[in-house]
């Protein structure tokens, strides 16, 4: 339990950019601690995006529940937001003076760019579990494991999302239903 809470305090303290930026860190701790498998983690992203509330809270609640039941769920979410809450209060007090300071602005430019790199790694992780029948063990095997149905679905989903820009819930429900019949 202490391990669980410690990991979530760490994530709450060190991730910038909200839910998406937390995915690679959450994945790291969830896989390393054997809390979830790769495909369970991908399912969790889907659930978190299609239910109400902040994505990160949804993921923390879920992981907390699978590890330590209801108490774990509540505490994981609480410790996740605690660092931000304390800093938000401190920031509210300090703000007028320093927000426009060029060093602060420069640090944020670097932070945001780093976060983009991190988000890209989580995209690669999700791509591996969703586009391959099995995780390819070496580079030469990539083509034989590639799931063509998934690839076609990805292209059509991306095209439709670009065109319509509706709520993620619609796409998740729609394609979830379709895939029951095609797999």
């Amino acid at each position: 339990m202490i391990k669980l809470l410690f990991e979530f305090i760490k994530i709450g303290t060190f991730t910038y950019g909200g839910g998406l930026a937390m995915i690679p860190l959450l994945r790291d701790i969830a896989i390393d601690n054997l809390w979830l498998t790769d495909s369970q983690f991908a399912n969790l992203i889907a659930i978190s995006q299609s239910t109400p509330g902040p994505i990160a809270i949804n993921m923390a609640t879920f992981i907390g529940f699978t590890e330590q039941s209801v108490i774990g769920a509540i505490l994981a979410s609480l410790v996740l937001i605690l660092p931000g809450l304390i800093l938000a209060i401190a920031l509210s007090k300090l703000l007028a003076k320093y927000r426009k300071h060029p060093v602060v602005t420069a640090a944020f430019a670097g932070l945001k760019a780093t976060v983009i790199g991190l988000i890209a790694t989580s995209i690669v992780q999700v791509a591996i579990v969703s586009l391959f029948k099995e995780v390819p063990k070496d580079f030469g095997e990539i083509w034989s494991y590639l799931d063509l149905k998934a690839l076609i679905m990805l292209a059509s989903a991306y095209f439709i999302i670009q065109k319509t820009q509706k709520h993620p819930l619609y796409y998740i429900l729609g394609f979830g239903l379709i895939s029951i019949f095609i797999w």
Partner: protein
Amino acid sequence: MKVFKKLLKLYIAFFKVGLLTIGGGYAMLPIIEQELVKGLELLTMDEVVESYTLSQTLPGVIASNAAALIGYRLGKVKGAVVSVLGVITPSIIIILFIAMIFTRIEHLEIVQNAFKGIRVVVLALLFDSFSRLFKVAVFDRKTFVIASVAFILVLFSIINPILVIVAGGFAGVAIYRERVSE
């Protein structure tokens, strides 16, 4: 008693924000507007947008940071705490129910097949938001280099992601110093 009533109102307002925002992010702004600007008339939309922007410069969960900043504005420390609790309560309740059910039905073939497709859709959704985030954060060659280096370091697990983020902040400051000397 008056203070208690105000805090209760804040809690309920942010409970609704948490309940009605699906997928996080900008989706919460119209709901905050509905609840706190039009409904309770406690602040202006300008103040909401300012708090929302600031919330992104803090670590952690953006929605809860935004709630803390707005809550502080309206009720100091107590206001911040109450607002944050309000915005996370619906998530915790709903996800608890889903987690209880999902861990039981996860192994069924129909559920597994549905999730094959859902994972693909999530991938497409990630591509979609990523392209927007990329345009905002990667605005020149230097930020592109920072993003690429971070990507490689984390993808191949060379360095812990948290250290990479801290280094990214310092890299930003280094770029700033360079600009000054130019």
